[in-house]
Every structure is written in structure tokens, then in C-alpha cells.
């Protein structure tokens, strides 16, 4: 029986096969909050509802004017995906990424005011203290860090035994809540030297938020939302859906709770009744981030289709109906092409023709014959601009033979090597066919 086993690819229809191909430059019209070149992992909205900041797999954050439905500034600093964003009380924004760094941004400035370094693994979440003096970060290095925004050393909170995925301050600023994949929730007192309260949870956790009344809500891998008092006592639970929950938001008036998950839907919960009010159904792709506007009714979601969608959380209607459209598989036209299969590792970051714009990486349209780091409109790493490489079939093949970090030092490209000479040849031949149009 086992000897007869055959490996075969199942018909997993992943969101990768549906990635919309979207513009990155701010000069393009953004009436529908399109602009990221990768999944929108983080979302924050200013208290006046005029501004949103989003973070994406494409390694950028974008500051949006919600009044004009337009991108105001693309924030480029991180060397990897931007996983978390938060707006500070003084109007600045903080972004944190898989590069383990936090950047603080003043609106309009091209470079961050400050960079906070210390985490040794990706940062998954950020929170700002109610008084605006402290930033908290949760990281896959299993720590939480408290950063005084006025300067000074970070306080490191150790104890979690797995990736820490969520962090939130209590409304009185006296405690900080963190959640981890170690199936625990910790309530850290921020003054004195007492130990944190450790609450064992039934599921690995991805997200946490705290309501204005101090109630804690956490969600994770089992698709449930867990309610706890500010002291950590259990106060109910509700299933948001069958798939893991990734992001949670409480409406400013405290009435609604939104839980987004990998199943592609957003559960809107009546918080007082502990009841599922409605489920917002998008195109079925994972929803990575969710946030309410100050009206407590309009909900923004960021998803794997790179788009920020607007919803009426009370009626369940989408405010931008056209946004339910999705693009097809960018490699559908190349079915059966071995080179296209090798290229599938690249589709999250690169497009193939000039009509499709840059994503996390530059478009590959017309790549052969082009000098490295010269494509107009893409923000290349400084290290690449100093290299003397012209992209030819031979140099592209060499890139994947020895790996990007060795062949193009300073690149932000993930380390990809193709050991098989035949596979490299197939990839190059595919690129010659697909990028010259």
C-alpha cells in the first residue's frame, strides 16, 4: 500500500493563485485604497478618522487620506514585510516588521525619526500606551518590549515560550496584555515588580485587544474569541468561524467586535450579547487586518488580495462593491509550463509584464538586457545600485545557482536557490518568453 504511494499536488486553491496585480506608486489613483503590492498585514486608523496607515508584505507602509481616498505617502524603510502599524497620540506613526525593527514616522518626512532595534526575530504586533509615552511590541523572539518614546532603554518582558503574536494596553495604562502561540495570555503589571498573571488558554493565540471598559478579547487558531476580565477571569467565548482568527478590533463605542481570519470572512460580534451579528464575506482570501472608523460602523479590512476594503459593519454591506473582484491566477496562461512552475516561487513579489506594476519586488517586464537596480519607479536597495550586473539568461541563472545574498549582496530578496541546472534553464527560458512582451 505504502509502496504504491504517489505524490501528487492536490487542488489547493490558494490565494496566491488569485493575487490581484496592483500599482504601488502614489501617483496612481487610489479611489479604492489600492496600492500595496502584497497582503495588507496591518491597519490603523487615526482617532479623527481622516487617516489610515497600512503595512504590507511588500515591505512598505502607506499613509492614506480617508477623506480623499488617496495615498499620501509610501513609507519605505523596512527590509522585510511590515507586520504591525500603530498611530501615536502626537500624530506620528510606528511601523514594525519581520526585520525585527520599529520605525517612528512624522507625516510628510521620507525617513523615520527614530528606529528602535532590539528584537531578534520578526515583530508581530504593536500597541501604544493610552498616555502616548510608551510603545509595546510583540515578537517571535518570544519577548514583549516596552519602548519609552521619549528615549531610553527598552524594558524586556520575558516568559512566553512561543512566538508572541499580540499585545494591547489596558485603558488605564496600568497593565499590558500579551498573547502567544504557547496557549497563554499574560497580564503584565507596568509598575512595581510583581509577576505577570498567566492565563492558560485552550488555543494558540494570534491577536488580542482590550475594550474601553478593560475587557480583554483574544483570538487564535481555533477560530474562537475568548473574553476575559481585566484581571484575567474567563467571561465567555464565541466561535467567529471554523478557521483561525488573525486580527481583532473593537468598535470605539464598544458595541461591536470584528474578527478577521484566514477563511476570508470577518465575523461581526455583538459584544454585549456575545452573539454573532453577521459575517462579512469577501472574495474568500485571507483577511489579515481589521480596524473600525470612529463612527463605530465603518470597518476597514486588509487582505491577501492587497486591497483595503470598506464595510458597513451594521448592515454587512461592502461600501465599495467593485472591490469584490479578484484577478485570476497570473500563471494560468502558462499551465503545464515547467518554467512557470519554477517561477511560482516568485509570484508573490514579481509581475511579468509592464501592465502589471511592481509588488514587493520590481516587475520583471523587459528584464533581459537591463542593468541591475535601474528600473524606473522602484525603490532599490542601495547595495544593488553599486553592483555591475546586467540581467542576461546567464546572470539570472547565476543568481539562483549561488543565491541572491551571495550574488547580489544587500538585496532584500528572500534567499532562493535552484539547485537543478534544468530547473534554472527552464526558469530562464520562461522569463525570456514571458517578460519580453
Amino acid at each position, binding site marked *: 500500500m505504502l509502496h504504491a504511494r504517489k505524490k501528487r499536488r492536490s487542488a489547493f486553491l490558494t490565494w496566491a493563485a488569485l493575487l490581484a496585480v496592483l500599482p504601488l506608486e502614489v501617483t496612481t489613483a487610489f479611489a479604492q485604497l489600492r496600492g500595496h503590492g502584497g497582503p495588507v498585514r496591518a491597519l490603523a486608523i487615526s482617532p479623527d478618522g481622516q487617516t489610515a496607515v497600512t503595512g504590507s508584505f511588500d515591505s512598505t507602509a502607506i499613509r492614506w487620506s480617508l477623506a480623499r481616498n488617496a495615498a499620501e505617502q509610501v513609507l519605505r524603510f523596512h527590509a522585510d514585510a511590515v507586520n504591525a502599524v500603530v498611530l501615536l497620540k502626537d500624530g506620528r506613526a510606528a511601523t514594525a516588521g519581520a526585520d525585527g525593527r520599529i520605525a517612528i514616522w512624522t507625516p510628510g518626512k521620507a525617513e523615520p525619526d527614530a528606529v528602535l532595534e532590539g528584537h531578534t526575530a*520578526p515583530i508581530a504586533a504593536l500597541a501604544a500606551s493610552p498616555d502616548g509615552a510608551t510603545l509595546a511590541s510583540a515578537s517571535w523572539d518570544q519577548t514583549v518590549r516596552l519602548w519609552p518614546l521619549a528615549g531610553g532603554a527598552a524594558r524586556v518582558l520575558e516568559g512566553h515560550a512561543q512566538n508572541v503574536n499580540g499585545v494591547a494596553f489596558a485603558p488605564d495604562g496600568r497593565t499590558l496584555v500579551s498573547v502567544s502561540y504557547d496557549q497563554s495570555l499574560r497580564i503584565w503589571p507596568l509598575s512595581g515588580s510583581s509577576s505577570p498573571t498567566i492565563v*492558560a488558554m485552550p488555543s494558540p493565540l494570534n491577536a488580542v485587544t482590550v475594550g474601553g471598559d478593560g475587557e480583554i478579547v483574544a483570538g487564535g487558531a481555533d477560530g474562537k474569541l475568548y473574553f476575559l476580565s481585566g484581571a484575567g477571569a474567563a467571561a465567555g467565548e464565541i466561535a467567529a468561524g471554523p478557521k483561525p482568527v488573525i486580527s481583532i478590533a473593537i468598535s470605539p463605542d464598544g458595541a461591536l467586535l470584528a474578527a478577521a481570519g*484566514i477563511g476570508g470572512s470577518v465575523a461581526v460580534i455583538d459584544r454585549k450579547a456575545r452573539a454573532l451579528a453577521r459575517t462579512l464575506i469577501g472574495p474568500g482570501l*485571507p483577511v489579515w487586518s481589521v480596524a473600525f472608523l470612529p463612527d463605530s460602523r465603518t470597518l476597514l479590512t486588509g487582505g491577501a488580495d492587497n486591497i483595503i476594503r470598506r464595510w458597513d459593519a451594521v448592515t454587512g454591506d461592502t461600501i465599495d462593491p467593485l472591490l469584490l473582484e479578484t484577478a485570476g491566477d497570473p500563471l494560468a496562461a502558462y499551465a503545464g509550463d515547467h518554467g512557470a512552475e*519554477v517561477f511560482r516561487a516568485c509570484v508573490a513579489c514579481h509581475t511579468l509584464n509592464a501592465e502589471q506594476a511592481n509588488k514587493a519586488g520590481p516587475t520583471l517586464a523587459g528584464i533581459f538586457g537591463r542593468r541591475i537596480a535601474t528600473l524606473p519607479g522602484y525603490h532599490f536597495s542601495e547595495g544593488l545600485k553599486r553592483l555591475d550586473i546586467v540581467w542576461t539568461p546567464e546572470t539570472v541563472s547565476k543568481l539562483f545557482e549561488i543565491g541572491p545574498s551571495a550574488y547580489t549582496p544587500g538585496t532584500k530578496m528572500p534567499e532562493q536557490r535552484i539547485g537543478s541546472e534544468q530547473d534554472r534553464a527552464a526558469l530562464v527560458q520562461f522569463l525570456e518568453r514571458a517578460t519580453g512582451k
Partner: protein
Amino acid sequence: MARMKFLCDADRCIECNACVTACKNEHEVPWGINRRRVVTINDGKPGERSVTMACMHCTDAPCAAVCPVNCFYTTADGVVLHSKDLCIGCGYCFYACPFGAPQYPKVGNFGSRGKMDKCTFCAGGPEADGSKEEYEKYGANRLAEGKLPLCAEMCSTKSLLAGDGEIIAQIYKERVMKRGYGSGAWGWKTAYRETIES
């Protein structure tokens, strides 16, 4: 074709970590990566239980739904594998996995860019069965040799079972009938969307 599954009988696990050690040794899993780990719940308190955790090779695997490069695939016997040639180490599958299975080796200053590594049910990867390339990327392919995962083979109390899902479910049912109690086949419902009726 059998549907391969893991079953963890939490009433039998003695936290010996033989499964963890066997896995690391069999596949030469690098430092810092544990494809399998033993977790103790309610440590030192009434109701203490230990469970061995790894990729459960889920039905309708949630990791596959979030992968931006479509690197996951399911074998004919239900084992969820991935291609390290396609994986870009983005980490998204970690948020989706109910068992914390995906691991990311540190290849640079940060851990985000290494290719994801996880339990293969001792079934290797996309390369030719038993090839050197397959072993270097994914470890041993015991299934291709007609053997079951070594972690379960090594389990001295047979808390961890691996094999045809129908057969191991039947074994668990008989155990519960005989001993008169069972705290559940840990993770079974989450992974396979079904319960084992006693």
C-alpha cells in the same frame, strides 16, 4: 489508499520526549528546529496532561490557504508536504497552523527568511523518493520504504499512533472501552474535522 493520520492519546503520554529525539535524529533536524515537541498542560496541577505536538497533516490544511507561493501539497495518502524550493519563509503559515508546526531556521540576522520546516510524516518531499536531495531538504522518507513515522514507532507507551486513520481510531476506541475513560484523541477534531465515537 489509506488516509494517514497521527493520534495522540493524552492519557498515555509520560513526557519522555523519545518522539522528539527520534525525529531529530532520524531527519538530522538542524539546531533550533523541532519538528515535534512535547507540551505539558496544567503542569503540577490536577488534570496535568502531556501531549506530543507536530504537524497533524490536517484535512483541508489551513497552512495551504495562506501560502503566497502555493508551496503545500497533499499526497495520495493524505500527508501534507511542502516544497522548500517554492517556500519563501514568509511565516504566514504559522498564523494558520493550530499546532504551531511551522518552524523557520535562522539564516541571517533574523528568522524570517529561512525556508519553513515541519514534520513530513516521515514522507520526504517533492524530490525522488529516497534521493540524497530529498534527505538533505526534508529528511528520511520512511513511508517510501513501507515504514511508519519513527516518532510513533519509538513511543514506549504507544501514546502516539501513526498510520491508517481508520485503524488508529479503532485502536483508540478499544482502549477507551477497556479502560473506561479517555480525555480525547488530542487535536484529532481540529485536524480532521471529526470525532472518534466510543
